[in-house]
């Protein structure tokens, strides 16, 4: 039984300390211990909740997830200490600190509740065994506790050290004491969010909402590390303070910050005293609410989410299915006259919208682009504003900023196209192989067009509108050229090495090594195309001259894709 690593062994010992108490509540402590032991062992072999995707490239068994979780949590904790450097006001420092702490912890845990902590298989595996309800519930609560401890302890260490350095080592004691109410409040917050969303939607939809929360989380983390320190340091200077406005009482992190301040250096302000009372009362009230009102239905509802039981949701009626044309159907008639290609377009269109794994991998990329653009705007220290920077004839900026805005989405849609080849359901691809298709290339062409239409066009359109407002009609040829160049880039990468049928490759086949090389090649191609574009800006009518060539090349490449025969398509063995 010594297969647990020391982190999990320590956690197990900690949560099993009040064993006598559990026994008193009617639990069989031996069984509780066994359940916890194996749950922790399984957690260690699961990709950590802080990693985005559950799939991995190599088949090597995962182990030591706990170490990664602890490490990543500690790193995240390091980012929360920046307020210690930018302001000298304790109240301001700790308000920013607790805001980040609570938000990040909540976002980390919110997905773990369904993916790690509530396991529907328990219903079939543990419940038929002679395990009492008390043992089962206590084991579950302790599992959640151990999981939370594993994240929150390393996460608060950097803050603890920063507090010690700045406010004296004695102040680390109140800091440690305040971690627990803050965490209790966060758990209450998560419960409340779950319950609220469940009230408003079905368990099935809830899963999608969860994945959007996850996507938002990844973008937020990325964005805040890129942008936040820069923004905050320009807004707040060492002398600014958050103050004692009564409205601040609606901000929970303020409560905890107030208590920290009062424990370090007491200030006689009524608002602070109220905030301090709230920080101690609210977690207790919250926990009572969780145990009394939320917990009974919570577990049950969560297992409904995890099992995705749709028994009670009657299927939607599609009476007008054939009579009314949807947007995607209308688009499909534009992109091709070939019926097979249109259906391939619709197939990929729907798969991209419905495949949770695809969204988790691709959508953050679009968020990154916006983050990159905003961050690079902030980085240029000159006084040029966004407007000035994106002016083609601006004396301050080169045309590179404009081209970057136009071409960057291409990199993401390129990545998105690569993802349309993979699915958990790859075996369903037999249907293409057994059908008597003459031109399997039509499937690839339709799918590629779906990526362009669903992911690239809206992004490009959005940026184009911004650029059009700033620059006016002079922007039009540039937008057109960028559009066709990006389409050309996609078709070239398809022809050069992605000649797979859409949605037929098993996920674990995606080889990391070649993906890196492909991404580099994509970037090179992007630089070449954008470079040609940049050179021609200087020439009068240069863009208008190259545009027909780009359109022609694009048409030719699509033609070549549709003409691919079976022996030219890279097949996945079924």
């Amino acid at each position, binding site marked *: 039984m010594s*297969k647990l690593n020391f982190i999990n062994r320590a956690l197990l010992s900690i949560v099993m300390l009040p064993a006598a108490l559990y026994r008193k509540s009617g639990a*069989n402590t*031996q*069984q509780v211990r*066994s*359940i916890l*032991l*194996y749950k922790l*062992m*399984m957690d260690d*072999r*699961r990709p950590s909740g802080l990693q985005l995707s559950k799939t991995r490239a190599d*088949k090597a*068994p995962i182990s030591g997830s706990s170490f990664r979780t602890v490490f990543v949590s500690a790193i995240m904790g390091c980012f929360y200490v920046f307020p210690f450097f930018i302001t000298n006001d304790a109240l301001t420092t700790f308000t920013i600190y607790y805001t980040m702490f609570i938000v990040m912890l909540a976002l980390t845990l919110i997905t773990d509740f369904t993916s790690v902590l509530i*396991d529907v*298989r328990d*219903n*079939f*595996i*543990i*419940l*038929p*065994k*002679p*395990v*009492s309800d008390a043992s089962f519930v206590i084991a579950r609560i302790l599992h959640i506790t151990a999981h939370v401890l594993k994240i929150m302890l390393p996460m608060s260490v950097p803050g603890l050290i920063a507090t010690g350095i700045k406010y004296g080592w004695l102040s680390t004691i109140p800091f440690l004491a305040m971690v627990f109410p803050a965490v209790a409040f966060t758990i209450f917050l998560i419960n409340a969010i779950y319950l609220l969303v469940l009230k408003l939607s079905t368990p099935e939809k809830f899963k999608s909402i969860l994945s959007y929360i996850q996507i938002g989380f990844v973008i937020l983390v990325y964005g805040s590390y890129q942008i936040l320190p820069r923004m905050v340091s320009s807004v707040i200077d060492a002398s600014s303070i958050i103050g004692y406005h009564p409205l601040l009482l609606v901000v929970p992190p303020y409560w905890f910050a107030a208590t920290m301040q009062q424990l370090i250096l007491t200030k006689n302000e009524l608002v602070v005293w109220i905030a301090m009372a709230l920080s101690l009362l609210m977690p207790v009230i919250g926990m009572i609410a969780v145990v009394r009102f939320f917990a009974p239905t919570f577990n049950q509802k969560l297992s409904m989410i995890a099992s995705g039981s749709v*028994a*009670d949701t009657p299927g939607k009626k599609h009476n007008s299915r054939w009579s009314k044309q949807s947007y995607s159907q209308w688009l499909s008639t534009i992109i091709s006259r070939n019926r097979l290609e249109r259906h391939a377009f619709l197939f990929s269109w729907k798969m991209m919208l419905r495949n949770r794994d695809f969204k988790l991998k691709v959508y953050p990329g679009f968020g990154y682009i916006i983050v990159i653009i905003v961050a690079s705007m902030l980085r240029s220290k000159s006084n040029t504003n966004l407007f000035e920077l994106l002016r083609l004839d601006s004396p301050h900026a080169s045309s590179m900023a404009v081209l970057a805005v136009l071409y960057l989405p291409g990199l993401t849609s390129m990545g998105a196209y690569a993802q349309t080849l993979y699915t958990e359901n790859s075996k369903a691809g037999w249907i293409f192989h057994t059908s008597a298709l003459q031109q399997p290339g039509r499937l690839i062409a339709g799918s590629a067009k779906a990526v362009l239409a669903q992911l690239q066009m809206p992004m490009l359109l959005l940026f184009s509108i911004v650029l059009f407002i700033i620059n006016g009609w002079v922007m039009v040829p540039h937008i057109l050229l960028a559009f066709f160049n990006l389409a050309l880039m996609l078709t070239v990468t398809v022809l050069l090495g992605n000649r797979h049928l859409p949605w037929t490759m098993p996920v674990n086949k995606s080889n990391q090594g070649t993906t890196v090389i492909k991404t580099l090649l994509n970037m090179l191609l992007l630089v070449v195309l954008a470079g040609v574009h940049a050179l021609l800006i200087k020439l009068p009518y240069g863009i208008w001259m190259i545009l027909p060539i780009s359109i022609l090349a694009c048409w030719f490449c699509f033609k070549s894709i549709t003409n691919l025969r079976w022996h030219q398509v890279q097949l996945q063995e079924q």
Partner: protein
Amino acid sequence: MAAAITIKNLWKSYSGNAVLKGINLEVHAGQVIGYIGPNGAGKTTTVKILCGLLAGYEGEVWIGDINIKEQPLEAKRKIGFIPELAELYENLTPHEFLHFMAALYELDADTAELRMQKMLSAFSLEANLHQRMDTFSKGMRQKVLITAGLLHNPEIIVMDEPLSGLDANSVIIVKELISKLAAEGKTIFYSSHMMDVVEKVSDRIILINQGTVVADGSFEELKKEQGNQSLENIFAQLTSNNSLHEAATDLMNAFK
């Protein structure tokens, strides 16, 4: 002596829809019960109640002289459950998983070790004992589940489609195993769709349809009552409203 399993007037409904409508059964020790019925007849619901997975039913369910509602833990100790879907924690190895299961039954580790070694060797899985189960085929997982269900040597074994995914040789082993367990006085409650297996292993067949028992007896008795025909035909006769041949004809008519 009390019957091994007694079900008295069992009713169960989900949000107003009655799934079980007054099931009455008495199963004696050493009997192999084949529990069959069409999809949605209430087979799995009965199995879940029998294993203590479902509460909120009306009527009584007794395991020997233990009422499941009143003493669920004592009842569960006597039952071994082999579920239908290969539900197990695939991150664990069979060795870890089975020790976990043994701990939940409070079976001592040495006995558990000895038993799992022997049982998994019988299934030719001894080489995979320390391999994580995420790479296992459906059949291999099912073998581990069967082992998990039998490990604590239960008096009553409840099986829900236990042969799914097993290859022909393993099916033979399990069928033999069922008769040997019955010979030792174990009671087997076998819920399945596979008529040919039910026909061969059970010494009593219970057919349920829309929540009620529509036939109960040995295969020979059923044949006598329903005319000398296969279990498949008896099943069709008792559970289908429309002629199945008509359905096939309707399907063919789609081409016309």
